[in-house]
């Protein structure tokens, strides 16, 4: 019974709901801002409506494209449900709806995959299950649920775990020779930003790139533990703000910095959050919840363990593939690899008839610039594109027997090199988790 008791007293013990309430509000508002920003940037049209063709994720080829109004409706509902999360209004429905819509939209086109979109999906998934709406919420105000000032510790720990994991694995991902020993890709990116205020002139020096690379690695590896330590937390949080603002100024990284700056507030103590809430006019008096405990629930424990296993295993699945993952990109996604590779490709596709006569493809006829950029370095996209081309030309009445491509890729400043076997019929390949033999090995050449 020792373990059961330990779990009861640590994970199922009740702790203050305050950090979770702040998290709910901040996350909901940042999501609302992100959706509005996306909309007003014209990206709904640019990313979902204009393209004739959408790249899918493996296993999610069935996700249908929407009619034009469907995208606007989805984003409108997404904004509404983000607001619902922030206000704690019809919270479970809002959180569920947000998770489904956000993830669904992401699944429509894998071109736009970003680590932080994936993070948003994971966090909103967790929010469905945690009772973040039990205090300072419309649901309580409307009497739909009873006010409760405590939650099982697991609800908060799970989110902390997820955030810590993002940092820690991002740090692990930085332990590679390009990043540490060549200061790549920062050696390329920093000089391009030498008009940065104040410290821009330092960016011309390779030493700066080294300092940033190493600093970034240590930051990512250590920050979860620093944030957990009550003594170092404030220092850590200043580092969080500094680090993320820096990346926001330097790179076209979108909302990620703000998501992390907002989300990591959850590491602060309950007292800290109470102070904020009362400062903002919160009136709830806190009870003594220290003795309360929900009892261990086996299904919950199994589900949580499963979730944690998946979160840890997914990023490391790349180890099952031969060669450099940054080159072949098998096992790349969902691995918290942020800003780690400067990669560019050029793909000349050829549709051949059964007599070997060719049509050279101009990618801009079929893909948007972002789609072309992403396709030119990602093998699974090449298969999908080849199949799309084959179908397109077959529909035009051509005997489209095979689709091949000459692809060249440069990674982190290395000379561009052939990326795939130019004689393979890409249209007849099927995507799977097994290694794609037709990806040529990276030339082990120095940068």
């Amino acid at each position, binding site marked *: 019974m020792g373990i059961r008791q330990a779990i009861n007293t640590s994970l199922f013990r009740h702790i203050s709901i305050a950090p979770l309430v702040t998290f709910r509000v901040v996350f909901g508002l940042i999501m609302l801002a992100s959706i509005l920003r996306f909309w007003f940037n014209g990206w709904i049209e640019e990313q979902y409506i204009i393209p004739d063709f959408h790249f899918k994720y493996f296993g999610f080829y069935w996700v249908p494209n929407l009619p034009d109004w469907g995208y606007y409706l989805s984003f409108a509902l997404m904004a509404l449900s983000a607001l619902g999360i922030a206000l704690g209004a019809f919270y479970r429905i809002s959180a569920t709806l947000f998770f489904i819509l956000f993830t669904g939209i992401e699944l429509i086109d894998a071109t736009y995959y970003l680590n932080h979109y994936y993070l948003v999906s994971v966090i909103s998934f967790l929010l469905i299950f945690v009772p973040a709406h039990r205090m300072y919420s419309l649901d309580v105000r409307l009497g739909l649920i009873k006010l409760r000032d405590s939650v099982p510790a697991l609800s908060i720990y799970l989110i902390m775990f997820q955030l810590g994991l993002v940092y820690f694995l991002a740090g692990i991902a930085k332990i590679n020779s390009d990043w540490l020993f060549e200061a790549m890709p920062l050696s390329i990116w920093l000089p*391009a930003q030498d008009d940065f205020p104040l410290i821009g002139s330092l960016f011309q020096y390779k030493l700066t790139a*080294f300092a940033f690379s190493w600093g970034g690695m240590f930051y990512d590896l250590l920050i979860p533990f620093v944030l957990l330590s009550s003594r170092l937390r404030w220092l850590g949080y200043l580092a969080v703000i500094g680090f993320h603002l820096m990346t926001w100024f330097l790179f*076209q990284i979108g909302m990620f910095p703000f998501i992390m700056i907002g989300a990591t507030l959850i590491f602060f103590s309950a007292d800290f959050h109470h102070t904020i809430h009362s400062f903002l006019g919160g009136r709830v008096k806190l009870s003594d919840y220290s003795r309360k405990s929900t009892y261990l629930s086996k299904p919950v424990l199994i589900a949580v363990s499963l979730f944690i296993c998946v979160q840890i295993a997914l990023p490391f699945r790349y180890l099952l593939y031969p060669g450099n993952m940054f080159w072949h990109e098998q096992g790349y996604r969902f691995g918290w690899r942020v800003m780690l590779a400067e990669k560019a490709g050029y793909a000349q596709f050829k549709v051949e008839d059964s007599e070997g006569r*060719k*049509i050279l493809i101009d990618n801009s006829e079929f893909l948007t610039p972002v789609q072309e950029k992403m396709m030119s370095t990602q093998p699974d996209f090449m298969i999908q594109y080849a199949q799309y081309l084959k179908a397109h030309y077959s529909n035009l009445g051509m005997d489209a027997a095979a689709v091949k491509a000459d692809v060249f890729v440069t990674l982190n400043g290395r*000379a561009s090199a052939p990326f795939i076997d130019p004689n393979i019929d890409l249209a007849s390949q099927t995507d799977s988790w097994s290694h794609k033999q037709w990806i040529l090995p990276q030339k082990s050449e120095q940068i």
Partner: protein
Amino acid sequence: MSIKAIPFAIIAAVFMQASIGCKDNNPGEPVGSPFAREDMLKEMAENVIMPSYSKLLSDVQQLEADFEMFKSSPNQQEFIAVRTSFIAAYVSWQSCSPFEVGPAAEESLRLMLNTFPLDTSQLKANMESGSYDLFSAQNSDAKGFPALDFLLFRNDSLEQFTQEKALLYFEQNLDLISEKLNTVISKWNDGYDQEFASNSGTSVGSSLGLMVNELNFDFELLKNAKVAIPLGLKTLGVAQPELVEAVYSDKSKELLLANLIGIKNLFIGAEGQGIDDYLDNLDAKYGNENLSQAIINRFDNCETKISALNSSLKSEIENNPSAVEALHTELQNLVVLLKTDMPSQLGVQITYQDNDGD
């Protein structure tokens, strides 16, 4: 070794590795600056862009003068003079074609001046009716240099050219070219030159970003529209020699060469600093050689292949396609460096969307 010592051991190991592994260059050496992108942009404008526009302007003015002469005394000699100065202007246009940034982009200069293949039936209909708007969408393939090429060269006798309707259509297209060009040049002189140089970042709308994109766009047009399509590479090998640029004057080879040299000139910055110098300053390598040199070598290979063609690209496609295929292969070799290594090493962004680096 105690746990606390591990980070220090790693740091020591790395700096040793960094000092050994870091090629020949000292990690303390600056790259990127003091060579400022702003200076490069300024020099590109002064040494490449403005001189090319000026040359084109004076050639267009010469064409206008010769055309006026022809109208006052329409004879064979003046006809030949108009033809000659037309070719000169068309050749000069080729080196301006890649600068589709700022004013040229606002005026859609490339589309206005050199959209081909020409829609001859639309042109003839326009000429017949005498009422048309050269700016309308349906006339996008019936104007500019290709229209002049048709009117001047469809027939060697000057009879057709001297018809009133033909002269009028010629003149209005010449006016269009001249007007658009003057607008672009005056915008450059009225402040865009400053804006161009001071927009010296590397983001999507930066001058360098725009230039790299347009250089590549123009190069793709060269490779596809001027070579691959007529050669039949997009039509299962069925050649379409009639789709070459300047099919009536049959000067497509000369224009192709001028276009390639124009793009190369933009890359090297003519006599001044260009993208090549900036790449050198960044210490950009292609294997063991400088990336700039690798690109220049491939430009030279393309140039050699074009020069080796006989004077008519059209007849080469018909009679000696393997020589044109060899050219296409060289163009393909060059485009790989221009579209992967170059933008990657420059750190320029090609899209506005959020990006977390893969």
